[in-house]
């Protein structure tokens, strides 16, 4: 067992434009995730005619695909403590006749969670992209990404990286749209996870206990953007504490934000 921190073991390097990126450089792998909301009926329990219709829809979905995908079914325990707390909080503002009903309902839900294991099922379709899979047939993968105006010498590595990311993002969007269209024919609704949705999914997979108690903010950049600024007041001189970045340097490696 190595002594490396847990962060080093997480290969996720960026989430941008609803695409998660693993690793870096030409070896980087990308993926987009669709959440699938299906019917509550089990396929094995519906009647034969309906089953045939659904299976034909799924077969059409599979036959239409020309790329790799991954189907993930997550079965997680449901934490209803937040729901009970919300019902109790709301009950304070209700009329006395409704208060008793609300408290009774909260007690019922609490009892249910104690007596039974409540599980929530979520289904996702993951559409990955990696150079090894997509460009495997091309002899020199570097050629695939060479821009027509590269020979002029005006293109930097950053430009090429941005172009590459854009092309991958567009390809993943097309694939997600194709999957969404095909699954909707089989009666399933899909919704693509945005940046925060992806971060929440990975957070709940890597650290479920923390994810349950800590909700992510709407903007991921709030967490990772550098906060280096000075609140300049003409009346007095600027101290090191006024500059967040400097303060964090003085405090050491604990954090950069005050």
């Amino acid at each position, binding site marked *: 067992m190595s002594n490396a921190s847990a962060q080093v073991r*997480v290969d996720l390097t960026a989430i941008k434009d609803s695409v998660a990126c693993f690793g870096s450089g030409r070896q980087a792998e990308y993926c987009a995730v669709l959440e699938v909301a299906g019917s509550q009926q089990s396929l094995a329990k519906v009647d034969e005619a309906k089953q045939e219709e659904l299976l034909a829809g799924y077969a059409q979905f599979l036959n239409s695909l020309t790329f790799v995908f991954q189907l993930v079914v997550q079965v997680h325990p449901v934490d209803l403590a937040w729901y009970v707390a919300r019902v109790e909080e709301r009950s304070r503002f209700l009329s006395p006749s409704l208060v008793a009903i609300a408290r009774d309902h909260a007690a019922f839900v609490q009892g249910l969670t104690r007596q039974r294991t409540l599980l929530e099922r979520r289904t996702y379709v993951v559409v990955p992209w990696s150079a090894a899979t997509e460009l495997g047939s091309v002899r020199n993968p570097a050629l695939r990404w060479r821009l027509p105006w590269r020979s002029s010498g005006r293109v930097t590595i950053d430009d090429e990286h941005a172009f590459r990311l854009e092309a991958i993002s567009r390809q993943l969007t097309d694939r997600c749209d194709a999957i969404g269209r095909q699954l909707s024919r089989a009666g399933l609704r899909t919704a693509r996870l945005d940046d925060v949705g992806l971060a929440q999914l990975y957070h709940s997979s890597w650290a479920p206990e923390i994810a349950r108690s800590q909700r992510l903010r709407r903007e991921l950049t709030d967490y990772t953007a550098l906060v280096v600024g000075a609140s300049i007041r003409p009346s007095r001189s600027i101290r090191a504490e006024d500059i967040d970045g400097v303060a964090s340097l003085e405090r050491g490696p604990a954090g950069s934000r005050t």
Partner: protein
Amino acid sequence: MPLPFQIRLARKGATSHNASRLEDGTHAGSPVLSPDGRLFALGTRTLADLIAPAGAEIRRDHLQLDAQYLRVMVVTGYPRTVAAGWLAPLVEEIDLPLELSLHVRPLSSGDMVRALGLQIAKLESSRRVDLLAQRINDPERDIALEDADRLRGSLQRGDERVFSVSLYLLLRAPKRRALDDATRRVEANWMGCWCIRA
């Protein structure tokens, strides 16, 4: 084979521009930083800082993330045919927190037709040798020949396609003993499949 995306770990020697911040504050593949730069890099936050657990430990037959125990099982043998909803008992009837991950890779029909042609030629020649030697037909080979021939016809007509499929199961439990119990329950309930603990 790829692991379920939820628990994929950084590859050995993989470099990333942001999350691979090393213990000494440097980034893998980046130029050597000055002492101040190194301190500053340690203070910055990355996406990995946000989602990573406090601790991750890889053991021989399980993984530990924070206080939770995880185990991945790989299905290595499948039944010859499956009915609609064959995985439903696992997802719906066993009350266990788990994650099922099915990787599907479409294969080129042209390549498959060529590969099946070769397979049919092998099986057919084996059958003819047996016939010449006046040996009794092998029923397993006859079924395989029939299946391969039918599949080749369907592929050629475009009625069917072939996929490479791999199935993984991730079990989670708060204690090691609970994880072992969950593993035994899954192994007992997974009728007709061979699975191994990864």
